[in-house]
């Protein structure tokens, strides 16, 4: 299978392990990723706060490039990129005014036709049985809390992906690896998002509640599909622990990393040594459960 | 110069349950309006055959107004929907045959909208006054007149 690939800024930088693990897993599953040539920033949060037109034009440019380069489906692993691309598509389809202005700005015509996937729908496309049948490690004792964050499922009217209040698609993928998803309460609760920079204490406060609930429900690991989620739950966890001594640590994995581990791939190649909260104890406990091929 | 004295003749086809009653309300409220319009009562705008409108123009109307219940409020449930659909095509037909379709006006006036009725009627009268006398029909008649000599050749 072939998919167009839109890495976005995070996967090229701070979320390198997301990129690495995704590519490793897809290589194993015989799936090719073709990076969009000359892709630019999707606008993320900054563009839509500054200029409506820009927030549509930036993703539009990437969609136009993808179409020109013959792609039908593109995967945007970062939830924010996914969200901005989908919203831009929706606006270009439904708002004549915006479409005309965008085309004028970019000096190209826009036409629909690209299917934008997020990490979870990518694996749904590839087929969960492929993950299941290739599982090498026994995950039956692994309790996983699936954290969706906000941008994967909202606004529902535009994204039309899963249930915005009680989503379950990530749990299906996790089940395919053999692990046990826990039925916890904070799947879609806010982590603090971009307040991470200017108001870190807000992020610590909110993210701590998420970590607490996961731990309460006996999760061994929290799995995410978004670099922002990862950053707030993983990177900021260090400070959370510093300010609240005696807390248990809980590793935060990307969904692609979890799948990679289940497929028996090398943890270094999955970028698992690039985390703030040490993943070594988790990996060690899993290797005890390795099943012969 | 003639236009100064020109007073447009307006025929209004109104539905009994909504607009006619709304016009009654305008009367009860003593809301003054111009005298140019003559109302023809029908049970429902669904009753209005496009031929009526053409006939009105033929008989000297400078403008025609059709008014009924708001969509979804038709006393007969769906009559005004059928009317509305008819007008979409009829407008195009009018233009095609050379009758200025902008002289045909539609409105939805409910039984409680006396003030709105006055605004609609005055609006139509003023608008048609600006357009001037409707000569289209006379012109059409002239254009479609077959000269006697041509008949021999047929």
């Amino acid at each position: 299978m072939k998919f167009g690939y839109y890495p976005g800024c995070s996967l090229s930088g701070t979320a390198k392990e997301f990129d690495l693990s995704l590519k490793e897993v897809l290589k194993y599953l015989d799936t090719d990723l073709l990076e969009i040539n000359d892709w630019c920033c999707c606008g993320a949060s900054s563009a839509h706060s500054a200029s409506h037109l820009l927030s549509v034009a930036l993703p539009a440019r990437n969609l136009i490039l993808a179409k020109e380069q013959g792609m039908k489906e593109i995967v945007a692993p970062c939830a924010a990129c996914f969200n901005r691309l989908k919203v831009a598509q929706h606006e270009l389809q439904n708002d004549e005014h915006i479409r005309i202005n965008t085309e004028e700005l970019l000096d190209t015509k826009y036409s629909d036709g690209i299917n934008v996937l997020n990490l979870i729908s990518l694996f749904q496309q590839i087929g969960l049985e492929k993950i299941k049948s290739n599982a090498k490690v026994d995950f039956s004792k692994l309790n996983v809390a699936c954290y969706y964050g906000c941008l994967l499922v909202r606004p529902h009217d535009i994204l039309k992906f899963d249930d915005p209040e009680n989503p379950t698609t990530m749990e299906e993928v996790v089940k395919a690896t053999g692990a046990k998803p826990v039925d916890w309460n904070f799947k879609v609760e806010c982590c603090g998002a971009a307040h991470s920079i200017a108001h870190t204490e807000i992020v610590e406060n909110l993210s701590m509640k998420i970590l607490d609930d996961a731990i309460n429900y006996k999760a061994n690991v929290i799995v995410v599909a978004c670099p922002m989620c990862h950053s707030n739950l993983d990177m900021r966890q260090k400070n959370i622990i510093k300010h609240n001594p005696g807390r248990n640590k809980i590793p935060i994995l990307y969904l692609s990393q979890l799948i990679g581990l289940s497929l028996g791939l090398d943890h270094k190649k999955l970028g698992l040594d690039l985390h703030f909260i040490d993943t070594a104890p988790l990996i060690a406990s899993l290797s005890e459960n390795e099943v012969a091929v | 110069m003639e236009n100064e004295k020109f007073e447009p003749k307006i025929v209004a086809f109104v539905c009994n349950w909504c607009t006619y009653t709304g016009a009654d309300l305008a009367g009860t409220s003593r809301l003054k309006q111009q005298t140019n319009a003559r109302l023809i009562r029908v049970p429902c705008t669904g009753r209005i055959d496009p031929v009526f409108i053409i006939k009105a123009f033929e008989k000297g109307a400078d403008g025609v107004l059709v008014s009924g219940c708001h969509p979804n409020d038709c006393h007969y449930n769906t009559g005004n929907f059928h009317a509305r659909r008819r007008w979409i095509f009829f407008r195009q037909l009018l233009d095609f045959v050379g009758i200025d379709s902008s002289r045909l006006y539609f409105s939805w006036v409910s039984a409680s909208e006396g003030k709105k009725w006055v605004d609609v009627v005055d609006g139509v009268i003023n608008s048609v006054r600006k357009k001037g006398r409707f000569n289209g029909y006379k012109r059409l008649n002239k254009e479609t007149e077959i000269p006697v000599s041509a008949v021999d050749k047929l």
Partner: protein
Amino acid sequence: MRIGVFICHCGENIGRTVDCPSVASACANFSGVVHAEDYKYMCSDPGQNLIKQAIKEKNLDAVVVGSCSPHMHEKTFRKACSDAGINPFLVEMANLREHCSWIHDDVPSATRKAIDLVRMLVEKVKFNEPLIPIRVPVTKRALVIGGGISGIQASLDIANAGYEVVLVEKEPSIGGHMSQLSETFPTLDCSQCILTPRMVEVYQHPRIKLVSYSEVENVEGFIGNFSVTIRKKARSVKDELCTGCGLCVQKCPIKKVALSDFDEGLATRPAMYVPFPQAVPNIPVIDRSVCTYFKTGKCQLCKKVCGREAIDFEQQDQLIKEDVGAIIVATGYKLYTIDKKPDESMIKGYGEYGYGKFKDVVDGLQFERIASASGPTSGEMLRPSDKTTPKKIVFIQCVGSRDESKGFSYCSKICCMYTAKHAMLYKHKVHDGEAYVFYMDIRAGGKNYDEFVRRAIEEDGVKYIRGRVSKIYEENGKLIVKGEDTLAGVRVEIDADMVVLATAMIAQNDSVKLAQTLSVSYDKYGFFNESHPKLKPVETSTGGIFLAGACNAPRDIPDSVSMASAAAAKALVLFGSDVLEREPVVAKVNEATCAGCFYCQKVCAYNAIEQKEIKDRQGNVIKVVAYVNSGLCQGCGTCNATCPSKSVELLGFKDDQIFAQINSFAEVF
């Protein structure tokens, strides 16, 4: 035709702005007019006498009155002329008051307009035909669909007036949702105490035929003449033999499998069951899906213990036919169960409240069953999960109502009141408990309603918080309710023991199917539509079918009862005569010119156009033409405008009559 024109001054109302004598003399010159006069007050007795006299003396065939709006006095003048021997449909009125004198100032132009207006109607009346009111026989029996409080009220009203009623109820017992309630607002009357006497009255009434555990399958016919097919579902019990002793229910061994609908899933009931002890009729039903006999062929304990041999495992559904003249729809409502958003199955609606996930998050009817003395907890305030007394309870209003994105845009009307009631009931039973209500607005508009809510706040200490709840989750056995207090501007978090959701009142699952069976229009939520929201709240677009209660819109008990009596009154009006007389302004088909294209049928909103075979003397069908059922036709004329050959015409508003008006509209302008 000899036409008489009568111009009314209406005192000063017309006379001040329209020169009535001039109008009358102008009309005298119209061709066909043999008499024209003006008078101060045409509608008065002397005025009417003038008309009657002129009709006799001048041998008039038709009359045109130039006066007020026909909506005012059309009936008056029609009757006057009818008394003098002219068919009432040869009388037309020109509106010289509301449409002329009252809206203009300039006397000359108003007078010219008046002359034109009268002229138009004089020309029209030349094409009028005498019309005779249509007479349709009436079957003086009523069908009431739905045996809740609305259906019960309507049935009793009609039966007490002396007519027979067939009352159809789909559940094994009548009573509806009201029988599930613990107490009713604003009096806190015991619901079953005020309801059951009525239920018994219905059962014992000699003129009410109660057909329970049944549904309406098909309806044919029209007003005054409906033919209804009812499916009587198989109880597996012969109701003519059963005495309601209840032994079979006691002995039934399958006790824990099926959830009780009456107790809203909070308790189980046996396979052989009566929905509740005061059920009417008190005849049990076998739930064949869980009964051992129907699944494996074994058991038959019920049959063994029945002293009357009333158990009949072979019983099948029965189809019954009933002829009635009026139908009242009183099928009630159900509560939004927050498992699926309408139209879109992806969203599970309000998943963030944990309904269905957390046992102690319940809805309004479930709380009623918990509070009810005959409920699963015998009236003790115990929460479903561990049967302990909740010390902190949270009520959330507007769950699904007033919410376009996840629910319904309308207000369910009763929730503010019943939430206050629930909170009060809770406080009365748990004196040291804390009750919180999250609300957006308080809608307590009925009699004694606002005082009721104030009582909950001031006397019973219920804490009202204006704000919405964003999430409910479980932590250490408590339900954490996260909301906000918009009046104080702070976030609120309550560790509750139980949460009650006031979910939206929605239409029954099969309401659309029933609406289509009856040819009644319905809105996008499945509620049945009334004929006119202001002035015809209990009639529907179909003649002879009336509405009562919550099947039309969210409604409380007093309003439902009022509406039921109103619907009954409408039915009684119908039964007041042996024949139904209808305005003859209906469509009629010229069968000679009709080509049978049936475009008319497609646009008729009342299904009044039928197909009629025209046969020759040998009985061979020559052609099939359209035929208008004058009992159903409401006279809109859409068919007339649609017919390509103008074979169907609306009597009273035919093309000729309208052309006549158009041709003469600007004679004097």
